């Protein structure tokens, strides 16, 4: 066996090919785009959370020098129909700019078109709006009583989605419900854990705020729209539909995108308004969001209340789980808003073989910024609720938190495993991940260290959490956008490879990982491959980057397209080498008959022949360019175990994370370096939610944490060094056995930290604390422990 000159790259820590431009300030983000004649937009937003617009006075704004035009909501409504959503859930009409009624602080009401952003902002500030202020409602459980405000008259008591059941005894359509199994589980229980928990609202805060440049060219009757989006093809589809253009007339481009985290899947009112104004005025326009706008104008994440009841035997065996969910979706349904909390229901079984589950979900409108996907989107919430309940069960039974979990795992021989809520887990070995984490963290020793610290009077706690994630979103049966992905691979005349993918990376590094795959597939150097993405004129079809689907779905599509080109190239090579194509080897930039590398043709020679095919092999067309659509058969379910050690300062209540160990199993890894980066980022967001991030509204619906002055985005000093380990359980659902890792970090980390905080305070009788772990909240608990009636010392 000859050692290949080019090493296999899949599985290697390859440096990113995206970086040279980004570390030199040469990337092009939306705000870096300039077009001659371009005007700037600024939006006038509602200062009130709920109000009826009595009058809008735009005269002062229109009179300003440099102002091209001002449009009110009513004027934009003549250009744009209500905005479409991406789910089949019932939804109230939602205008790109509010008409008559505003329903959250920050809702856009009017827009200015002006010479530059300073003038546009001045003019927007000069627009005077007279509101009849209506009562606002910010608490979803209060909103469900229909008081003190009704947001949308057609949704009684503000209920966006009436209780939707899922689980044991519930028919697939949710229409018939049989309670016998879940009732039996609770009747046979020896111990029941009941707790109301809140998974609070967070602000995604991509470092690059949103932005859009719309350029309608009247002479060409075509629209080019650059947007800081995760899904340019969805953008193209929606912009075409909303502006009355055909999809062939719209080109959407996601240039360099500065983070998404789910908040840039949605197509926003500002995108439509920019497109409509550009088309109406026939000029290019740009809008870039300020950070203080982003806090109210870009969707938020999470905001779920759960009433959890866990039924178990005293040996720790779980018999049944009830989870009643109330989702605060804010003022409107956005693209995926309504569907996100259904994922929480779907994942109620977590890593456990729970024989009876009943989940119900109610979605409620409130006078807040709408929610939508945020990293993990529904799965972190499920993980949090179930893992906190398991932890409470362990404490109640005085069992080690690892042992309770071990007792209930779905056994490795049971995969594929269908949960009571209908999820089909592809593969898993949860006990292996748990054992790996216990070993890596040195659990026994850690417990000893905790106990020693406690003996000194310190408040130190340990928290452990399992998780199972859903990745590789598809197939199309569950996604209104389609659940496939598309790719095209071209071997150019010089033997270099141009590949396009329908996923739209914004930090995930697919220009590197996808090139690694193709380099191995074709046996060519990485440098000979370019990956294009994000431009619908170059990438013919696609869905986008979200739901940790890039590798499992996009990567597979690319691999399939590559395989097609390779097969065709092999036929050309076979002709040149006078051999059978099945005997050929692609290696180190050459193609040769197995065992005869000396008689190799170079990759470039074969490529050149394919484009000037004299003679043309029988049955072949010239050229080397093939595409593929990949429709996954199901989603993938990576998993892991996270362990946190945390200390709470007895004097100040300030929590400090001392240690964090993560074991993640995402199946096979294409690039471990990039995977580590993805995990780190997920951990930071999950831990951030538990420790310092919180979105606070006052009773009148004003967002009080509306800037980085008050919203605590994690800093480098907030984290210890994360210790990462992994296990490998490949998925059978794609040729790489890769599951996905983009969001996983946010799942186990949040409950692990909260479990650690509860453990630290357990000597005070604490059984549960809602996030976030504000020092003041912990300080009060330390000062006045909960009354024994609610807790009681062990």
């Amino acid at each position, binding site marked *: 066996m000859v050692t290949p000159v080019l090493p296999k790259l899949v599985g290697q820590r390859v440096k990113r090919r995206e970086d040279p431009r980004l570390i030199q300030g040469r990337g092009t983000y939306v705000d870096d785009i300039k077009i001659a004649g371009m005007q700037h937009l600024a939006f006038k937003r509602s*200062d009130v959370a709920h109000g009826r617009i009595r009058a809008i006075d735009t005269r002062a704004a229109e009179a300003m020098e440099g102002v091209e035009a001002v449009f009110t909501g009513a004027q934009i409504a003549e250009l744009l129909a209500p905005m479409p959503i991406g789910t089949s859930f019932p939804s109230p009409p939602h205008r790109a700019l509010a008409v008559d009624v505003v329903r959250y*602080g920050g809702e856009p009401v009017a827009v200015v078109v002006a010479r530059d952003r300073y003038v546009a902002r001045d003019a927007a500030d000069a627009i005077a709006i007279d509101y009849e*202020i209506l009562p606002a409602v910010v608490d979803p459980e209060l909103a469900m009583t229909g008081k003190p405000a009704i947001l949308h008259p057609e949704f009684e008591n503000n209920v966006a989605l009436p209780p939707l059941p899922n689980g044991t005894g519930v028919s697939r359509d949710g229409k018939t419900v049989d309670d016998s199994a879940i009732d039996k589980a609770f009747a046979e229980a020896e111990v029941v854990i009941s707790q109301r928990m809140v998974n609070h609202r967070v602000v995604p805060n991509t470092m690059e705020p949103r932005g859009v440049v719309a350029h309608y060219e009247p002479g060409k009757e075509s629209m080019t729209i650059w947007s800081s989006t995760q899904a340019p093809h969805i953008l193209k589809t929606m912009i075409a539909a909303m502006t009355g253009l055909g999809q062939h007339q719209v080109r959407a481009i996601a240039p360099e995108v500065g983070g998404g985290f789910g908040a840039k899947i949605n197509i926003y009112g500002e995108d439509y308004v920019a497109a409509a104004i550009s088309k109406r005025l026939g000029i290019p326009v740009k809008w870039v969001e300020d950070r*203080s706008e982003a806090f*109210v104008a870009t969707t938020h994440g999470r905001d779920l209340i759960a009433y959890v009841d866990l039924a178990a035997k005293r040996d720790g065996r779980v018999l049944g789980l009830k989870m009643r969910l109330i989702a605060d979706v804010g003022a409107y349904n956005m693209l995926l808003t309504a569907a996100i909390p259904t994922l929480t229901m779907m994942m109620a079984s977590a890593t456990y073989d729970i024989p009876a589950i009943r989940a119900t979900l109610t979605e409620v409108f409130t006078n807040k910024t709408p929610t939508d996907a945020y990293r993990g989107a529904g799965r972190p919430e499920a993980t949090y609720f179930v893992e906190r309940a398991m932890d409470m069960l362990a404490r109640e039974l005085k069992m080690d938190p690892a042992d309770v979990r071990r007792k209930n795992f779905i056994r490795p021989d049971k995969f594929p495993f269908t949960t009571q809520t209908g999820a089909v887990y592809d593969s898993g070995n949860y006990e292996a991940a748990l054992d790996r984490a216990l070993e890596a963290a040195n659990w026994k020793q850690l417990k000893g260290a905790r106990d020693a610290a406690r003996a000194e009077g310190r408040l130190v706690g340990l928290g452990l959490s399992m998780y199972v994630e859903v990745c590789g979103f598809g197939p199309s049966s569950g996604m209104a956008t389609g659940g496939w992905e598309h790719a095209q691979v071209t071997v150019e005349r010089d033997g270099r490879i141009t590949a396009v993918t329908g996923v739209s990376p914004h930090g995930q590094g697919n220009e590197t990982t996808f090139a690694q795959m193709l380099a191995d597939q074709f046996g060519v150097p990485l440098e000979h491959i370019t990956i294009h993405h994000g431009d619908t004129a170059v990438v013919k079809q696609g869905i986008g980057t979200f739901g940790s689907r890039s590798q499992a779905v996009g990567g597979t599509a690319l691999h399939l397209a590559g395989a097609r080109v390779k097969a065709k190239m092999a036929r050309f090579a076979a002709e040149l080498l006078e051999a059978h194509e099945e005997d050929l080897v692609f290696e180190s930039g050459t193609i040769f008959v197995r065992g005869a590398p000396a008689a190799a043709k170079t990759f470039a020679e074969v490529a050149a022949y394919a484009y000037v095919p004299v003679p043309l092999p029988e049955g072949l067309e010239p050229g080397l360019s093939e595409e593929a659509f990949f429709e996954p058969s199901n989603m993938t379910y990576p998993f892991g175990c996270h362990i946190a050690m945390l200390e709470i300062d007895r004097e100040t209540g300030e929590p400090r994370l001392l240690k964090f160990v993560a074991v993640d199993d995402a199946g096979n890894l294409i690039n471990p370096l990039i995977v580590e980066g993805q995990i780190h980022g997920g951990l930071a967001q999950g831990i951030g939610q538990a420790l310092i991030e919180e979105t606070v509204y006052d009773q009148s619906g*004003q967002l009080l944490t509306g*800037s980085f002055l*008050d919203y605590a985005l994690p800093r480098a000093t907030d984290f210890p060094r994360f210790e990462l380990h992994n296990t490998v359980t490949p998925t059978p659902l794609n040729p790489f056995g890769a599951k996905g890792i983009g969001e996983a970090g946010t799942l186990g980390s949040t409950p692990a930290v909260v479990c650690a905080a509860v453990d630290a305070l357990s000597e005070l009788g604490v059984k549960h604390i809602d996030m976030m772990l504000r020092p003041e909240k912990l300080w009060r608990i330390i000062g006045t422990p909960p009354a024994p009636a609610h807790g009681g010392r062990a």
Partner: protein
Amino acid sequence: MDISGTYLFNAPPRQVWSLLMDTTAIARCVPGCRELRPVGPDRYETELSVAVAAISGDFKGTIELADKLPPQSYKLIVSGTGRPGFVRGTATITLAPHESGTAVQVAASANAGGLIARVGQRLLEGVARMMMDRFYQCLASQLDSGQG
């Protein structure tokens, strides 16, 4: 946001009442206020410059006096909107004899919206309290210096 305070004046209630109804004195003592323009009975328009944390700007607003019971009590209804957002508030002001002078008790509730609330909320209450203190101290000093 609820704030309250009590301010002592060295004059009998009737004299303090007239001072509190004197729009010139009020305009002079409201921090950032330029003038009060009557637009109806007990109703005035005004412009106010306010700075809270990183947010500053001009508010256009109205001030209304209601439920007047001279020289015992009245209600002050304030609303203003401007570039940084809006503020609305109602204050109940009660005058009572106190030793040789008058105790003026103020109980106000106010809310704010927009940028000033989002970015400045933490400091808003402090700023409102400071402005109220300065207003009444200013009025009291006018009385002391005989200007009232």
